[in-house]
């Protein structure tokens, strides 16, 4: 830039914009304080609610019976293979115990059922629903 534009720039830099008023300072102080105090009240309530919700979700996820598995037929060996592990939860184990079975036998029965049900299906993915032993 030329010397003249540099001089203009210096002129501009020499000017001071009007200071903010006391009204703005006071208004801002009141508004920020109001928001801060509101946050102080709501933070523990929100935190507690979130923690409780997370605990409920985790508990439901753990106790909910999960009896489905994905089974695919292995075309090379001409037999169904279990793609995802059999996932039985504590609720299902308690059903199994009530029926006089061990959790391990429940898993084995599930895998057997899957193999039987899938025998006619060749090279396809299938979703096998699990039925309660009771």
């Amino acid at each position, binding site marked *: 830039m030329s010397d003249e534009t540099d001089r203009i720039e210096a002129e501009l830099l020499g000017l001071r914009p*009007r200071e*903010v008023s006391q009204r703005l300072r006071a208004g*801002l102080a009141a508004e920020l304080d109001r928001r801060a105090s509101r946050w102080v009240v709501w933070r523990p309530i929100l935190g507690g609610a979130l923690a409780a919700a997370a605990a409920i979700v985790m508990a439901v996820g753990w106790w909910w019976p999960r009896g489905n598995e994905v089974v695919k037929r292995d075309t090379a060996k001409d037999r169904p293979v279990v793609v995802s592990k059999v996932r039985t939860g504590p609720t299902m184990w308690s059903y199994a115990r009530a029926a006089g079975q061990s959790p391990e036998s429940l898993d084995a029965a599930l895998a057997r059922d899957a193999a039987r049900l899938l025998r006619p299906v060749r090279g396809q993915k299938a979703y096998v629903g699990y039925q309660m032993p009771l």
Partner: protein
Amino acid sequence: MNSDRWRDWLGEHGSGLVLFARRWAPRQSDAEDIVQEAFVRFWRGRERVGEPVAYLYACVKRCAMDWRRTTERRTRREMGGAGERDECLFEPSGQDSERREAIEAALRRLPDEQRDVVVLKIWGGLTFQEVAGILDIPSNTAASRYRYALEALRAWLPEEVQQ
């Protein structure tokens, strides 16, 4: 302490922010209202952004545009375009009042997009890249607008003011 920190921020940037807001709100008091709202918004999100000063100016721009939308009709009716030029942009200083007035008048003559760049660069202390981010333009465009603005000011300002 938190309260001291916002006071520091306001002390350092407040006058530049109000000057920037006055592009949309010609009255100083309206511009201060805009800055207040923008500052509250900025204070909430300041820790999540990389360039807080640029973010602060961007908040002012957004709030100013919102303000303009909601009050434009009313302002036009009430003020009729008069009176908005009465309030000075800069601190009055006794011996330099003529110079200040001439520069203010020249600044007001600038197209809005050039005036924005000058205000953000000179009184906001921002880089062209930051200015470009706030105004949603390429940084080369910001630099060229700045250059055009200075050339226009040089042409408009009386010779004695430049000395």
